[in-house]
């Protein structure tokens, strides 16, 4: 009798506690639904509706317009190049700071700086590159003065593909350093010693030990960097003032004033962007779980 009452009491309290817990997390889920999930879903649903709200695939098909194809191609090119160069150089830099035998103060300096630079994106970054490599920028002027070499006559333009890529690298490389350093830390000294004992050369050690272990991390980070560049608006907008028609800039103009003259095509454009960043993030998650097998 007594035990039943007691367990009843405990059960009641448990329900009470769980209720409190669910009430405690409720604001989070309401917030996420209202300001993250529903707006995105509603927007993406618009990509599959016509003016009267009927289901259609016409908007997606309309993405095949030459100007839209061109902006997707340019966006993919800039994102892929800045991610590739960022991943490679970020890897080399991180590896140099961790295992390169440079003075020990370089590593914490690089990490702190990477934290700052990966957050120093957007409008101010564009200003910095205009002051550096713009037509009257310091480096442009210095090259002109010292080597009598005008980079603009040689075909460089800060407001073009290479200029934007070079600017994006300022946050891509530091991001790579931050993501990859833990993976490089996970390379054990014993593996190097084991390779040496077995008589392998440095190249063989890289080819058969380091790269097979690190490649999922490197490839995964590449995808993350790619998605990061693909969604960026502010840097490109401040740098080129919407003259360079990459997808986020096109979408920005579309939201401002329906430049495509078709609101539903705008939703389709948004869908295309989410599809690309979504897929690259999904692949990143797959690769990350692979890399975690070795690096604990």
């Amino acid at each position: 009798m007594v035990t039943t009452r007691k367990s009843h009491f405990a059960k009641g309290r448990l329900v009470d506690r769980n209720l409190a817990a669910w009430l405690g997390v409720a604001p989070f889920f309401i917030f996420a639904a209202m300001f993250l999930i529903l707006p995105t879903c509603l927007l993406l649903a618009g990509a599959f509706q016509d003016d009267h709200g009927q289901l259609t695939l016409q908007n997606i098909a309309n993405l095949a317009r030459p100007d839209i194809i061109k902006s997707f191609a340019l966006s993919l090119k800039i994102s892929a190049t800045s991610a590739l160069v960022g991943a490679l150089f970020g890897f080399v830099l991180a590896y140099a700071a961790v295992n390169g035998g440079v003075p020990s103060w370089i590593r914490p300096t690089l990490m702190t700086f990477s934290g700052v630079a990966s957050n120093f994106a957007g409008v101010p970054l564009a200003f910095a590159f205009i002051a550096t490599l713009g037509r009257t920028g310091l480096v442009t002027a210095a090259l002109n003065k010292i080597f009598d070499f005008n980079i603009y006559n040689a075909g460089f333009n800060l407001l073009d593909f290479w200029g934007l890529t070079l600017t994006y690298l300022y946050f891509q490389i530091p991001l790579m350093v931050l993501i990859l350093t833990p993976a490089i830390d996970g390379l054990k000294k014993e593996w190097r010693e084991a390779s040496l004992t077995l008589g392998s050369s440095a190249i063989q050690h890289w080819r058969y030990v380091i790269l097979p272990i690190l490649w999922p991390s490197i490839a995964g980070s590449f995808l993350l960097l790619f998605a990061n560049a693909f969604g960026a608006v502010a840097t490109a907008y401040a740098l080129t003032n919407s003259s360079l028609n990459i997808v986020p800039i096109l979408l920005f103009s579309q939201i401002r004033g329906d430049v495509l003259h078709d609101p539903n095509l705008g939703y389709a454009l948004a869908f295309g962007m989410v599809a690309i960043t979504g897929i690259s993030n999904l692949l990143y998650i797959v690769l990350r779980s692979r890399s975690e097998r070795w690096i604990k």
Partner: protein
Amino acid sequence: MKNSNLGAWLAVILGALYFLMPLVATFEFSLRLKRDEYSFEAYRIVLSDPVFQSAFTYSLVLAIVTIVIGILIVVPTAYWVQLRLPKLRPVVEFITLLPLVIPAIIIVFGYIRMYNTSSFLPLTQTVLGTDILLSFGYVALSLPYMYRAVETGMRSIDVGTLTEAAESLGAKWPTILLSVILPNIRSAILSGAFLTFATVIGEFTFASLLNRPTFGPYLQLIGAKRAYEPAALAIIAFVITWACMGLLQVAGGAARHANGAKK
């Protein structure tokens, strides 16, 4: 071995050149407003511009509101997930990572469609409504950083024991959260707050598309109109970012210290 050392040095020097050059150039450029001499005239003009002052103050207030709302949403969630609802952890973690997957421009486009003047909740109709929308939008943008910081802090303390101890002394859960959990994860919350601040203070896309006069759109406007002031503003923005990251490290160091002392 010598060879790999040389390569490492080369990488470090190349990296230093690439990263320091724009900073040096921007600083030099920002001093060139007066024709014949270096001066801080561009900084003086910017700092005394009333539009700058109002835009910066506005962003400052927005950042603080965002941080407060973020803490109010994230701390209880992380607490209950840790204590009673561990099964929800993957779901909550997935949601907090969404802002890294969905570009900001998509989220704000969704807001404009969902909360427009003819919708069920016409937030964009009034200034106050838009400000509320912008603050919650910034909470969403900074969710990955805030949640991860708070969650790490929560894992480093024994939430279960602390809660039981407080309960046995008769505390109800608001008291537990406010006077037991919160002080114990103070440095983690600070880390999240500084990252949020760095994200919000110069944010451009949300503010510009919701037509709010924050610091980000102001920067863009000055960039389109002026020559030397943007460089001065870039240096100011860089110093702010640097300060946030510096304070972040101080907060992180304090957290490690507290953990070390506990063990």
